[in-house]
């Protein structure tokens, strides 16, 4: 009943094997491509001694109440938390190491983000140092230590870069573009063409 009413007569195997071979080759080529993001996205950045994360689904919806796991470079779990109503979660830097932040949303959605150790400053809050040094009565000749200057610059850079980081997070969230969708439909029609080519060649033989 489910069989095709008139299956193609005497199918030669070579054409069909050709299709299998070509698709296997495609598979091999594409499977080596990096697949780094999925249906949920997490974006994390460091400000001072705090790591901020934002999580979203590809439709632009915030991933609320999803689990965030933080691992160090050896894969030990450092801490665990839940995103809030805005899909955000922040935590103090637990230690100076490469951090791997994994987001687990419901229904098998998962994403990760890596923060290299260089982006993380020492745990000792440099910003407080900077504040105290700024409040000191400044004599005519200002002499700040290298450390203090660095802390000051870092602090103001963090503040200035915050909107840019937010923008970056938003741009990462960009859904599929029109050209990609049209491209995908084109791929399917192309595949139909290839399949029809082999099917008619098969029939002619």
């Amino acid at each position, binding site marked *: 009943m489910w069989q095709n009413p008139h299956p193609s007569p005497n199918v030669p195997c070579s054409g069909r094997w050709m299709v299998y071979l070509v698709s296997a080759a495609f598979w091999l080529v594409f499977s080596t491509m990096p697949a780094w993001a999925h249906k949920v996205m997490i974006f994390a950045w460091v400000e001072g001694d705090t790591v901020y994360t934002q999580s979203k689904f590809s*439709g632009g919806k915030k991933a609320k109440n999803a689990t965030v796991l933080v691992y160090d470079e050896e894969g030990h779990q450092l801490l665990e938390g839940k995103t809030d109503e805005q899909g955000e979660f922040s935590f103090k830097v637990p230690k100076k190491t490469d951090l791997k932040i994994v987001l687990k949303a419901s229904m*098998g959605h998962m994403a990760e983000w890596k923060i290299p150790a260089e982006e993380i400053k020492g745990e000792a809050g440099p910003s407080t140092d900077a504040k105290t040094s700024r409040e000191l009565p400044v004599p005519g000749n200002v002499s700040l230590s290298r450390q203090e200057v660095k802390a000051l610059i870092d602090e103001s850079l963090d503040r200035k870069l915050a909107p840019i980081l937010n923008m970056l997070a938003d741009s990462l969230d960009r859904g599929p573009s029109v050209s990609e969708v049209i491209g995908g439909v084109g791929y399917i029609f192309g595949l139909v063409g290839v399949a*029809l080519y082999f*099917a008619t060649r098969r029939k002619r033989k």
Partner: protein
Amino acid sequence: MHISEGVLSPGVLIAGAALTTAGVAVGLKGLDHEEIPSMGILSAAFFVASLVHVPIGPSSVHLILNGLLGLILGWKAFPAILVGLALHALLFQFGGITTLGVNTLNMALPAIICSYLFGWGVRTGTRQLIFTVTAFACGSCAVLISGMLVGFSLYLTGEAFLPAAKVVVAVHFPVMLIEGVLTAACALFLRRVKPELLEGQYVAKPSS
């Protein structure tokens, strides 16, 4: 509906891939060249439908249309869905390459189950009411079974089944309604303009 990479255990991934391979083989067996264009069009419809997001619940859900594919294509829904999902994974990073097998199974198997369960009404239903109701049921049940299969896949990997399945099914309830209406509308439209598409695989066509 698309399960991401790194969530499922290797055993589940391999089992899903094996079952999908079998399903695709059945779908491609004795494929007639006249059926290839309709497969392609439905595969494209499936590919685009998944981009229509319905913002509901704690997650994000989208249309699937697997009921419609099952209704029109039968077993050939397997290769059609596989192609659509492969492009999702490659172009949009929905799902993933390693989870392609499991995801295809989760969406294509319900399509076939529903076409067996409700296909009779669409094939033989001369009465408008039976035709519409079975087409609606086909569309919405396919989504329901898909949701349960996703929950089951997560359960096999160690997540508690009931909470996971409950979330998936509850979240997809509105989608079930939308899909049922869409499937019924498509089937009614096809019956008027191109009835052989609905019957093509069951009734012998005049030989070309």
